[in-house]
């Protein structure tokens, strides 16, 4: 019931978001057709504005846009005049999603075992080394990590391609660049969660009952210790799916990250609103999914 309500609430929220985005982007100085080179006559500019209905009052434009949305039409891109916003999203989203999901898997696949391992060996050299690695992952921004990886692995040793998006090999360096920070964060969260759990009473009880250490760690402690990571994974996945501008730019990956930044610089109105809506849906759905998973994993959590 609770989740049903939240899903129903999404609709007015999205309409509100689209309205705000629409009005705000139109309020920016400069339109999509303000260029260094003015057209030869004011008439040409008039035709351009008329073609994209930019000469109408803003509310009427918004009404037109909303009507299009109801029919699944995000409108034409004003910058890429041969493409519609839906086209661009349909081409770029799978790429951004793949990259984000790969980085997510990398972050989880490296972060969880690392956090678990360092917590179990608390105070030993394994802990220091592993924690140091996690700290480095968090501290080195992708803007630095990316070029370093390219220089070593792609240019010096030629193991991987320097850029572009054509084969699984092309995905390796971008995944590392994008995922390392998150792997570090996950490791830290897992580490803390594990330590906190190991000190709780039910673990002492389990030990007193004589359960094997492996069983305690994996069966009982892990399940609770992973909760902070789970809460973080929603925003993390959203970050990974939306915050790929630097990596996409660096590796020339045809995802949506580049459009996200450039569309507002180019005042490509329809593109900006389309992407804002897309990301809003992503964020809302992911948060919903995280809360739902919480319910499944932790029997103490109840929403009604």
């Amino acid at each position: 019931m609770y989740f049903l309500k939240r899903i129903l609430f999404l609709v007015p929220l999205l309409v509100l978001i689209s309205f705000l985005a629409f009005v705000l982007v139109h309020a920016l100085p400069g339109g999509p057709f303000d260029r260094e080179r003015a057209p030869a006559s004011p008439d040409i500019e008039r035709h351009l504005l008329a073609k994209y209905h930019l000469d109408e009052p803003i509310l009427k434009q918004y009404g037109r846009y909303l009507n299009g949305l109801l029919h699944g039409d995000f409108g034409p891109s004003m910058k890429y005049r041969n493409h519609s916003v839906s086209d661009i999203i349909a081409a770029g989203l799978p790429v951004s999603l793949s990259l984000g999901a790969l980085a997510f898997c990398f972050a989880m696949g490296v972060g969880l075992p690392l956090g678990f391992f360092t917590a179990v060996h608390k105070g030993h050299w394994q802990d220091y080394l592993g924690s140091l690695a996690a700290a480095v992952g968090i501290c080195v921004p992708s803007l630095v990590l990316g070029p370093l990886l390219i220089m070593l692995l792609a240019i010096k040793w030629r193991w991987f391609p320097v850029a572009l998006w054509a084969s699984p090999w092309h995905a390796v360096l971008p995944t590392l660049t994008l995922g390392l920070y998150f792997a570090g964060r996950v490791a830290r969260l897992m580490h803390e969660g594990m330590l906190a759990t190991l000190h709780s009473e039910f673990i002492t009880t389990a030990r007193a009952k004589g359960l094997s250490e492996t069983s305690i760690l994996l069966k009982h402690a892990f399940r609770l210790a992973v909760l902070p990571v789970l809460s973080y994974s929603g925003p993390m996945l959203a970050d990974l799916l939306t915050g790929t501008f630097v990596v996409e730019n660096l590796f020339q990956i045809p995802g949506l990250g580049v459009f996200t930044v450039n569309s507002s610089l180019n005042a490509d109105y329809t593109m900006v609103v389309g992407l804002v809506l897309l990301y809003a849906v992503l964020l809302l759905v992911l948060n919903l999914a995280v809360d739902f998973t919480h319910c499944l994993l932790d029997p103490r959590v109840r929403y009604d």
Partner: protein
Amino acid sequence: MSLASRIREPSPGAWRRLWSLWPGLLLLAGCTGSEPRADLVIINGPDPETLDPALGTGLEDLRVIGALFEGLARNDPVTALPIPGLAESWEVSPDGRVYTFHLRDHLWWSPGQPITANDVIYSWRRVLDPRTASEYAGQLFYIKNGEAYNSGKIQDPSLIGAQALDARTVRVELNHPTAFFLDLCAFQTLAVVPRHFIEKYGEDWMRTRPLPTSGPYLLQQWRLNDKIRLVKNPFYWDAAHTRSAVVDCLPISAPNTALNLYQTGGADIIWDRDNIPNELMDVLSRRPDYHTFPYQGTYFLRCNTTHPPFNDSRVRQALALAIDKHRLVEKILRGGEPVADHLVPDGTAHYLPATGLGYDPPRARRLLAQAGYPGGKGFPHCNYLFDSASGGEKIHEKVAVELKQMWRDQLGIQVDLKQMEKQAYQVAQNHFDYDISRSTWIGDYNDPNTFLDLFRSDNGNNRTGWKNAAYDAYMEDANRQVDLTRRAALLREAETILVSEEAPIIPIYFYVGFTYYNPARIKGIYPNLLDDHPLNAVWKTGLGKD
């Protein structure tokens, strides 16, 4: 037993689902698949906004459009001067106002329909049609009634001064003798597009395959922000001379990425300076791959002449005379750019540019004193507007800092630097919301008119508020001349007013063309003022096909 399979137990389903994503994702990531490398891979700069000849405006658009669609004339790969394209010959009337073009025999759209004179007329009318909303419709305003049709003053397209006399003859009537009309016929806006196809698919025609083309290449693939793949058009009339069968044009937004690709063999040619990292200019410019040549572009400053103190030509002249342009090009640009004292680049066809104001600080100080600001005393605080350069380079910013210092040291005036995003900067310039502003102009065709026309009083690109009746009269008079020598003299008079006597603009330097390629492997690129290198003339040796 792996950790993963053990921890399945407490949370059945959730983890299994997560792990089972792995192979699927890898598949997804690789789904674009590897294709065979093209014969020629070119780094084309930002992604083209459109490949429709009527809509294209950016250099990166026009380069690809030129490979797909041809007009009555095309540019010679060596000189970039117009040579016969779809038309094999033409006659010009003695008064220079009527052109008669004769189309070649056996011209075909790529799937096989004939290209006729009616296609030419259709293509031009389409550019002028208000519903097309072509930004470059002005390229056809030289034709009689072209502007009137575009503005809606006349509704009947048959009144436009371009008619098909028969299937192979086009007659064009111009408003004035236009010395550069053939150059325009070779410009992409006037290229011939497939009427049957556009009428069938409407706005979606560019996204429909196979796309009929009139030029040397077919558009096999156009993935936004990824790549454009061109393959040789076997129906093109001069297909025998298309040197590369498959050409990829890559959009690259970061210059470092472009260079990385080039260095590892992923690309053969880098066009444009914006795609080469400026911080490596010293190293790169010493390599044999680095090619630079005079280019038709000028970096200059606009002064807002609508309010004091910049409404006084002595102040503007003083600002110009206080700039050490040599220092700017040697210290900041480092790419061999020549300094500019006049607006029209040296070497422009049928022209000898005017002499402008050089570097003369004592004279600058005298002029400023005469204007009422001795030693800069009493000179109001003013601002210098500039935008962020594309590709993350900081050239505009560095130039701004240098200028500020020169004006302070030489003239004693304080200038505040004001940086804006590109669109906001354009708006500020259009609304005279600036004092001095950085500007660029790239010529469309090889003629002084493409530069000097800007500063006529009624031109939308003037943006200085400067209106000068004598300048307008010279320009008007020049463009009525059939005699090119007389015309050049009149244009030169106009330019002298612009860059020396009145100085509403201050030229800084001329751009140079840049291409980065291995001269031992890549052939068919010739330096020319338009930086135009038709793709069908370019090829790579050692592919076993030459």
